[in-house]
């Protein structure tokens, strides 16, 4: 098992530069998640590691070897596709062993590996079924099995849960997390646009936007100390609340203490506490009862929608007038959207 290093990696399609100089260090055995909105270049980056896209500039190393010019099969990477990419006419066992067989592996060894992968993924009862006779979750497990039998240095996952329904997505997410432990902590690179997947699976999250790395770090580090407005808004659910500041005051003139020259104040929904004389006022527009929490969306006097979290069972009604203290962590951002309260920079 080995790590992956990207050094000043760039990619252009014609005149369009989609990856604009990316540096990422993924340690051996690490579960690294690339997350970002659609079109940020995360899938392209993964495909470049796999060798399915050529690298325009920079270096990609897997296990200390520069792999830029190597064929995909020689890179020691196995990939799991969003659409599973199973061969529809082959049964599960043949799907998993196809690559090995075509490369001239002895039948006994192929069978042994397929059986082992099937055991890990609990696919043993389905080995003689065709993909169309499997559920979405089972198909995705077969796709993972096909990666496992190759015993790769790096597993690459390209939005593997996107085609599954909500319930299966949660179940398969857990299975992938377990798998990471089962497979002797193999290195995994995982692409998703879903920040919940990123937060729950990752040892390390790489937030990408517009072909650039915005921030790299462990999930809670990104949650607690976002490097900029984009990361602050992208990581965490519900989204962080942002209020524009003008000379240390909110748009309605209410002063906010100790903001210095900050232009934007950020605070999460759980940072707000109901308080009769709090500085932040609002009229509740929507109440979301989630069972383990209550989210109240409220409209401020200057017309902005913000959200506050309440303990389960709290009775709040739409139309109610509330006041809040910002009791939890506050995040301050300068005019360029960079975080001011910590020396955080986008770095590995």
């Amino acid at each position, binding site marked *: 098992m080995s790590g992956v290093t990207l050094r000043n990696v760039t990619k252009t399609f014609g005149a369009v530069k989609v990856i604009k100089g990316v540096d990422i260090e993924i340690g051996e055995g690490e579960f690294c998640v690339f997350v970002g909105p659609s079109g940020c270049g995360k899938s392209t980056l993964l495909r470049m590691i796999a060798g*399915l896209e050529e690298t325009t500039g920079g270096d990609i190393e897997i296990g200390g070897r520069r792999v830029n010019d190597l064929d995909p099969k020689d890179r020691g990477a196995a*990939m799991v596709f969003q659409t599973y990419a199973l061969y*529809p*006419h082959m049964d599960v066992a043949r799907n998993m062993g196809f*690559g090995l067989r*075509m490369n001239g592996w002895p039948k006994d060894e192929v069978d042994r590996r397929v059986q082992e992968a099937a055991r890990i993924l609990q696919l043993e009862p389905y080995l003689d079924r065709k993909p169309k006779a499997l559920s979405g979750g089972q198909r995705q497990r077969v796709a993972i099995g096909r990666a496992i039998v190759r015993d790769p240095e790096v597993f690459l996952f390209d939005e593997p849960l996107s085609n599954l329904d909500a319930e299966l997505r949660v179940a398969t997410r857990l299975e992938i997390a377990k798998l990471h432990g089962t497979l002797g902590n193999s290195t995994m690179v995982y692409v998703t646009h879903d920040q919940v997947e990123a937060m729950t699976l990752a040892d390390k999250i790489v937030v990408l936007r517009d072909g650039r790395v915005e921030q790299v770090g462990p999930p809670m580090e990104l949650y607690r100390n976002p490097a900029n407005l984009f990361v602050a808004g992208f990581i965490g659910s519900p989204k962080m609340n942002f209020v524009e500041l003008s000379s240390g005051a909110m748009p309605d003139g209410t002063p906010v203490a100790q903001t210095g020259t900050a232009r934007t104040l950020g605070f999460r929904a759980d940072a707000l506490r109901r308080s009769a004389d709090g500085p932040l006022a609002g009229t509740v527009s929507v109440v979301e009862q989630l069972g383990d929490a209550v989210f109240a969306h409220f409209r401020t006097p200057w017309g902005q929608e913000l959200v506050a979290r309440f303990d389960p069972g709290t009775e709040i009604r739409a139309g109610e007038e509330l006041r809040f203290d910002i009791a939890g962590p506050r995040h301050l951002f300068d005019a360029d959207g960079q975080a001011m309260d910590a020396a955080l920079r986008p770095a590995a």
Partner: protein
Amino acid sequence: MSTADHDIPAAGPRTGLGTRLWAHRVDYLFLVPGLVIFGAFILWPMLASQYYSLLDWSGFDSRRIFVGLRNYRELLADEFFVAAFWRSVWFTLATVPLQMLLGLVLAVILNNRLLKLSAVFRTLIFLPVVTPVAVIAIVMALMLSPFNGPINDLITGAGLVQRAVDFLGSPQLVMWSLAGIYVWKWTGVTMIYWLAALQTVPDELYEAARLDGVTGRQVTMYVVMPIIAPFAVVIGLISAISALNVFPLIQATTQGGPFFASEVMEVFIFRTAFAPPSGTFPQLGYASAAGVLFGLAIMGLTILQVLAVRRTRRKEPGHG
């Protein structure tokens, strides 16, 4: 094909057919133009030819004699009819497999994204398909001519043959030559069918195979071919039916000659009905009987196609 077939709600309370027709009279009114055209140009000729096949009638005078199945009995004993029938079968068997194989090879080559100018090649290969048969007939007659035709110049120049070959004038060679022209003209269509079939193979399968170290040849043999194999049934039957409808090409090149050597079923029917050899009369009734028999043969093939398509759909990837 879709599961929606099962979702059709149960019919409402049943009423008389007349009542229902009257209730939807405006809807049915919109069907009238289509029905009139279908009736006049498809249904009527079909029914009429079946009636004519029971007549001794030239088609050009008012003397019609009802002869029952005599035309059919005579046809089965007519060596020209039997020869034309088997010639049509031979032509189909000679052209369809070749056309399908060539079309498949071209489609697999041109489906490769890495191949530059593949759109240009596709267009070039498709060009004969859209060229009128009459033009092709004239060009081919010139190309294959034993008198200074470029193909004869080429093969005699290269020393492959001693004397010029009369491709379209030799009874032994004419069907082979026509089969060659036919395959050249229509392979483009088969290629398009295969290309459409190849589009059903998702890119990810090629990529997954690439990551697995599977070679291009192995991917074609073990991944692509099994996936597109069910389409072969449909493509084969469409090609076979079109190979049985080869009248324009043969009429424009050889008119069934020399010495009836290229007279396929359709040319036989045309000759019998409209262009009899000098000294004989047109026999529309007799030709109609031949048409009905040939029609039954094609219908059998079409039914086979429908059954095959249904079977293919059931076996198609993703349909379970």
